[in-house]
């Protein structure tokens, strides 16, 4: 499958000016007012770097950027510091910065919303940030756990929803695009997301762009974009060792007991890096094991990632990066109901499997390699060339399926600061080609016992996906508004899959068309008091030709049998609209709290019903308190009962409840050592989002980290 994306963006930004010609280095340390180092972002003009774990930063100023320079130092949770320095050509200047704790970060820098670096409040669409501080506090073991707490984001059995974009389609396609440092990373065959593609320890922060992003990112960015930004490699030798151990709670009722031991989990990962002024490299190795919290739920994972950066001259950077993960896990198909196993007199056994799925197992290998060339040619123009190779390979046992997908991608992009400080033009072209070899994608191009998928010209479709937006700063905060079109081409799996699911035959539909959507948004962000800040947006999405599974009746004239089968079809016109708001307050200097609320009104306009798998209310409360080297925190999330599910005729009578999940955490940090205790789902609340699939029970884990 070949895709070509041409994008053109014009947006406002701030550009600092510089005077004299020549090169220079600005360096120093960033700490808080107590002297604790901060991984802050230091920005001078269009140059930017991130301080390392000890707060050290070093910024090379390109020719033409020396002289009088405005420096901005940002870190979430601290007030932005603005400094003006005079840098002499060919010289270096040391400047140490001490950031004051603030209610919220006022000016974080983002790179995903407009494909160039900009301040958060200059984005025309809503962007949620999961900062390095958030990741450290929660000590998550997976990227999905971190993204799941972002305002407006909800995971349904591993499938990410941004403002209700995806629902749940058994992993057969995602309406959210995953990027790893800007490199598209959705699976080439199924279109889903492997959240274990990158070791979580490599991730510095996450940017979640909400709404249709196809103007800049093409297919799959129908509902939004999640960009995992990995750590910069600091100068010198650095290392980190992280060990995790924990246990899963047993079922809270005797009637649901399914094993005679307590399940555990554990993991160990190590990262080492070394950097000079011109050459830097890092390597991460890790492994983890989990017994799982249900029957047939064990998993083992091995992962590695690496990155090399070469900076041959100021303004030029060559980066090669890659990651590889091998994940073997037992599959919990659906929970057990009477006649599907011995339920011991119960109507359902949420911790036990339907015996028809006994022995189900998956080996999932995945990885990517990417090379990027960045060049800042002048104070006003920079360009980037990128090539990437993404490979996914899964092998299922019961049912026995396998698939290998290779996605080759390339992008060329230029960013022109077109005069003044507030006009930026981004122009680029991006192409990708995906090849799939599998045994489950019908008989198109069948070779031997497998299928090689190729797409001919007649199947190519051109979709124009513009986006326009504006930002207005006022006394009542910063207003933003945007209109954009998104699209998602059907995945190879959606078009050609031939398998069995839920006891029914799944048949291919090569005639599937792309689904499209128009997204509208108007929002406001700003401080409403010295101790509080609000961000709120009203959004409205009109979608057409939504790709959803449907039952079809098939009559066999030979046997005169009529059977029901599942086929992926363009079935729906849909509307999703609502309110996405968050408030952050600091009632005491060391205490922060955030309330985030999503109200979602989703309608299937074709069938005049609520869209399936879209909860109406999503409320997230978070709080953290810091006292010297100790910290405590909590997250509480309420997800209203899902009103309608797909395949209602099969699963409609299954019990469903609203979700109320409380996570607790405590941490201690002293120098290079830190320890954190996490209790997720502390109330051991038993619930499910997806039919007959239990969500995680209470899990207690301890994470110890040593950083050098």
């Amino acid at each position, binding site marked *: 499958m070949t895709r070509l994306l041409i994008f053109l963006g014009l947006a406002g930004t701030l550009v600092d000016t510089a005077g004299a010609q020549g090169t220079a280095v600005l360096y120093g340390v960033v700490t808080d007012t107590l002297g604790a180092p901060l991984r802050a972002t230091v920005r001078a003009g269009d140059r930017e770097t991130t301080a390392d774990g000890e707060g050290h930063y070093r910024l090379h100023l390109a020719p033409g950027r020396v002289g009088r320079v405005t420096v901005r130092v940002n870190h979430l949770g601290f007030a932005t510091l603005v400094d003006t320095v005079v840098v002499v050509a060919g010289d270096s200047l040391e400047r140490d910065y001490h950031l004051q704790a603030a209610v919220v970060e006022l000016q974080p820098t983002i790179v995903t919303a407009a494909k160039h670096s900009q301040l958060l409040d200059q984005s025309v669409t809503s962007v949620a940030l999961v900062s390095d501080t958030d990741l450290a506090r929660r000590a998550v073991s997976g990227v999905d756990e971190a993204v799941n707490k972002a305002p407006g984001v909800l995971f349904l059995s591993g499938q990410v929803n941004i403002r209700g974009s995806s629902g749940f389609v058994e992993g057969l396609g995602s309406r959210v695009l995953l990027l790893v440092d800007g490199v598209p990373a959705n699976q080439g065959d199924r279109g889903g997301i492997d959240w274990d593609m990158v070791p979580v320890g490599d991730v510095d922060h996450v940017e979640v762009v909400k709404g249709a992003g196809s103007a800049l990112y093409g297919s799959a960015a129908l509902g939004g974009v999640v960009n995992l930004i990995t750590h910069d490699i600091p100068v010198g030798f650095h290392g980190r060792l992280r060990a995790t151990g924990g246990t899963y709670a047993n079922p809270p*009722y005797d*009637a*649901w007991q399914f094993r005679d031991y307590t399940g555990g989990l554990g993991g160990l990962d190590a990262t080492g890096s070394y950097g000079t002024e011109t050459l830097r490299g890092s390597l991460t190795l890790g492994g983890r094991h989990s017994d799982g919290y249900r029957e047939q739920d064990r998993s083992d994972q091995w992962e590695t990632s690496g990155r090399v950066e070469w900076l041959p001259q100021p303004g030029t950077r060559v980066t090669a990066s890659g990651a590889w993960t091998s994940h073997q896990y037992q599959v919990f198909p659906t929970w057990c*109901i*009477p*006649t*599907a196993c011995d*339920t011991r*007199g*119960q*109507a*359902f056994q*949420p911790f036990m499997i339907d015996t028809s799925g006994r022995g189900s197992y998956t080996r999932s290998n995945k990885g990517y390699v990417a090379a990027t060339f960045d060049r800042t040619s002048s104070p006003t123009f920079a360009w980037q060339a990128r090539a990437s190779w993404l490979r996914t390979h899964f092998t299922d046992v019961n049912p026995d399926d396998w698939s290998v997908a290779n996605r080759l991608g390339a992008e060329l992009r230029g960013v022109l600061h077109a005069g003044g400080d507030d006009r930026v033009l981004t122009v680029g072209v991006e192409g990708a080609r995906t090849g799939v070899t599998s045994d489950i994608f019908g008989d198109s191009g069948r070779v031997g016992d497998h299928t090689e998928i190729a797409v001919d010209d007649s199947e190519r479709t051109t979709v124009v996906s513009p986006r326009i937006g504006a930002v207005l700063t006022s006394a009542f905060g910063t207003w933003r508004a945007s209109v954009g079109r998104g699209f998602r081409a059907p995945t190879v799996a959606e078009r050609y899959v031939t398998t069995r699911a839920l006891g*029914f035959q799944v048949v291919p539909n090569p005639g599937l068309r792309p689904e499209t959507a128009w997204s509208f948004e108007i929002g406001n962000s700003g401080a409403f*008091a*010295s*101790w509080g800040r609000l961000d709120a947006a009203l959004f409205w999405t009109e979608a057409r030709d939504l790709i959803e599974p449907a*039952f079809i009746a098939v009559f066999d004239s030979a*046997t*005169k*049998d*009529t059977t*029901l089968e599942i086929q992926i079809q363009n079935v729906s016109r849909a509307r999703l609209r609502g309110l996405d708001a968050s408030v952050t*307050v600091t*009632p*005491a200097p060391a205490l922060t*709290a955030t*309330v985030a609320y999503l109200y979602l009104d989703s309608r299937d306009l074709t069938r005049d019903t609520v869209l399936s798998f879209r909860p109406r209310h999503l*409320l997230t*409360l978070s*709080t953290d308190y810091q006292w010297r080297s100790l910290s405590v925190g909590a997250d*509480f999330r*309420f997800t209203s009962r899902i009103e309608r599910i797909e*395949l209602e*005729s*099969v*699963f*409609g*009578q*299954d*019990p469903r*409840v*609203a*979700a*109320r999940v*409380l996570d607790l955490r405590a941490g201690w940090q002293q120098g290079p050592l830190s320890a954190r205790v996490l209790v997720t789902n502390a*109330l051991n*609340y*038993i*619930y*499910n989002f997806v039919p007959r699939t239990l969500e995680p029970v209470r899990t207690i884990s301890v994470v110890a980290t040593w950083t050098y």
Partner: protein
Amino acid sequence: MIAGMRSRVACAALAAVAALACNEGLRPTTCNGICGTLAFSGTVPESTQAVYVVAYHTFPHSRDSLFNFQPPLPSLHALPLGGAPTFYDIPVPAGRYEWVLAVWVKQGFNLTNADSTLREAGYYRDSADTSQPGAVTVAGGPADTINFVVDFAHMHPPCHYYNPPCQ
């Protein structure tokens, strides 16, 4: 004033957490609509495709109403064929059901040959008159202990219950 507002915000947040957390999730339940125990009698025919338990709001006196049962066709789960008594559970909407029965399905069944490939293999009986079907009501909770016998030796085609019945 700001301090007061801060404390009110904190109290409101705590109250919200407490209120929202004071609820329970899924709990063990022995029934999810209509459930009970099935006992088996007779020899399972070799031509058996499957046996299901279904429920009719209204007794099906004609071919037209033969497929107006709950749960819907895709939700049916086949029962074990013979052996020890087994627990069954069929998820059905609230309401009154005039006939709860086990349906034997012959191999080769399709929607056009139902009369020759379906059989009533036993049904829940009225305790006052065991020759008559017992009505089951699902309201405000499941109907449990809806126990009956599946008798493979005494099965009847659908038209046996039509008005008029077949010969």
